């Protein structure tokens, strides 16, 4: 399946969650990644996406209540590249 990669502008994990969700129009988040400078959301085509939110947390943070794991990948925040987890949470 061909991925659609969208460059993200959020500068913190708190900003990135809503931004990742905002792109989900006929797209569904599949993965997250970084090139060491910018961060990216990797999406797949899907006609109907869940009515939900997305939160991004450091890998050692406890998962959110009722959160479903979506993807894990490196993100660059404040110049530091670390692994984060993206979760789908109820709207």
């Amino acid at each position, binding site marked *: 399946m061909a991925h659609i990669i969208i460059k993200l*502008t959020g500068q913190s994990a708190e900003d990135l969650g809503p931004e990742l969700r*905002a792109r989900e*129009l006929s797209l569904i988040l599949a993965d997250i990644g970084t090139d060491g400078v910018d961060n990216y959301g990797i999406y797949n085509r899907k006609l109907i996406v869940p009515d939900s939110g997305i939160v991004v947390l450091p890998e050692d943070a406890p998962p959110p209540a009722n959160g479903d794991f979506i993807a894990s990948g490196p993100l660059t925040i404040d110049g530091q590249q670390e692994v984060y987890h993206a979760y789908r949470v109820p709207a």
Partner: protein
Amino acid sequence: MTHRIAALALGCFALGGCASFDGIQEPVMASDVAVQTAVGSYGLATTLERIERETDKKAYRNRVISIWLLAIDTRYDAFRRDLSRGRKGANVGLDMLTLGLTSAGAIWDGAASELSALATGVGGTRASLDRELYFEKTLPVLISYMDAERLTLRGAIMEGMAKPIGDYPLEQGFSDLWRYQSAGSLDRAIGKAAEGAAEQVAEAEYDYSQAVELCLPTQQQDVRRRSLYMRMIAGVPADESAVPDEVLARANRGAALAGKSAVATDAALATKLDQIYAASDHLNGLCKESELDAFEAAVFGGGS
């Protein structure tokens, strides 16, 4: 000479003793019975004609689908049994024959050279058999791919059976049954395995130079964009870029969501989906109220 014949007989006995080895119990219900019932009494043309006369169409649809599911399942079980028997029977039988021949060679020195040569030949036969049928290590993986896909498709069919006849007509049931049947194929499983491997490689090596840069909507704009998108796929307006209810119905039935295989057989649906995707990609790049107003006017004729 007598010893040689006895040694060969021992080796052959070792193989004969394992001829009935099987890793799956013999079924009580023969697959042919279910298949004959499905084909004989619940064929496509017969059932499509009869369902029109049925008062409880949903019950009849579910009975037809259940019988076909049983027929497909029994055939699949027979297929799996043959695969398992083919592997275990051949491997264990040939292993035992090799063991028998080499043991006999050790007991009767006079027969050693011939038996060792024969044992080598038998071992080679097994290796050849495995290579040809990719049984040694890949079969369990391929079976798990087949099982997983069958389970997914079966779940979709069961969901469909819970729906009213208008939302899941018998024709759609037969279409899903066909895909369910096709999932029990080694060739298809190999394709899935290769696709999975390719996907993993692709995910590990994203080409970020291909990334799209989009404006970031406010929360209010996000809500409006999402509302426009939902109206678009619900087929509220009647212009060309809108999506008819038929598409949404198909999506709800899982056909569109099932992916390319479902869409590929329906050119009209594929075109409509392409239009939705193009429109949603455009919508994804709008972050001004004026742009959203223009989009709404273009797609919905200015109505709200």
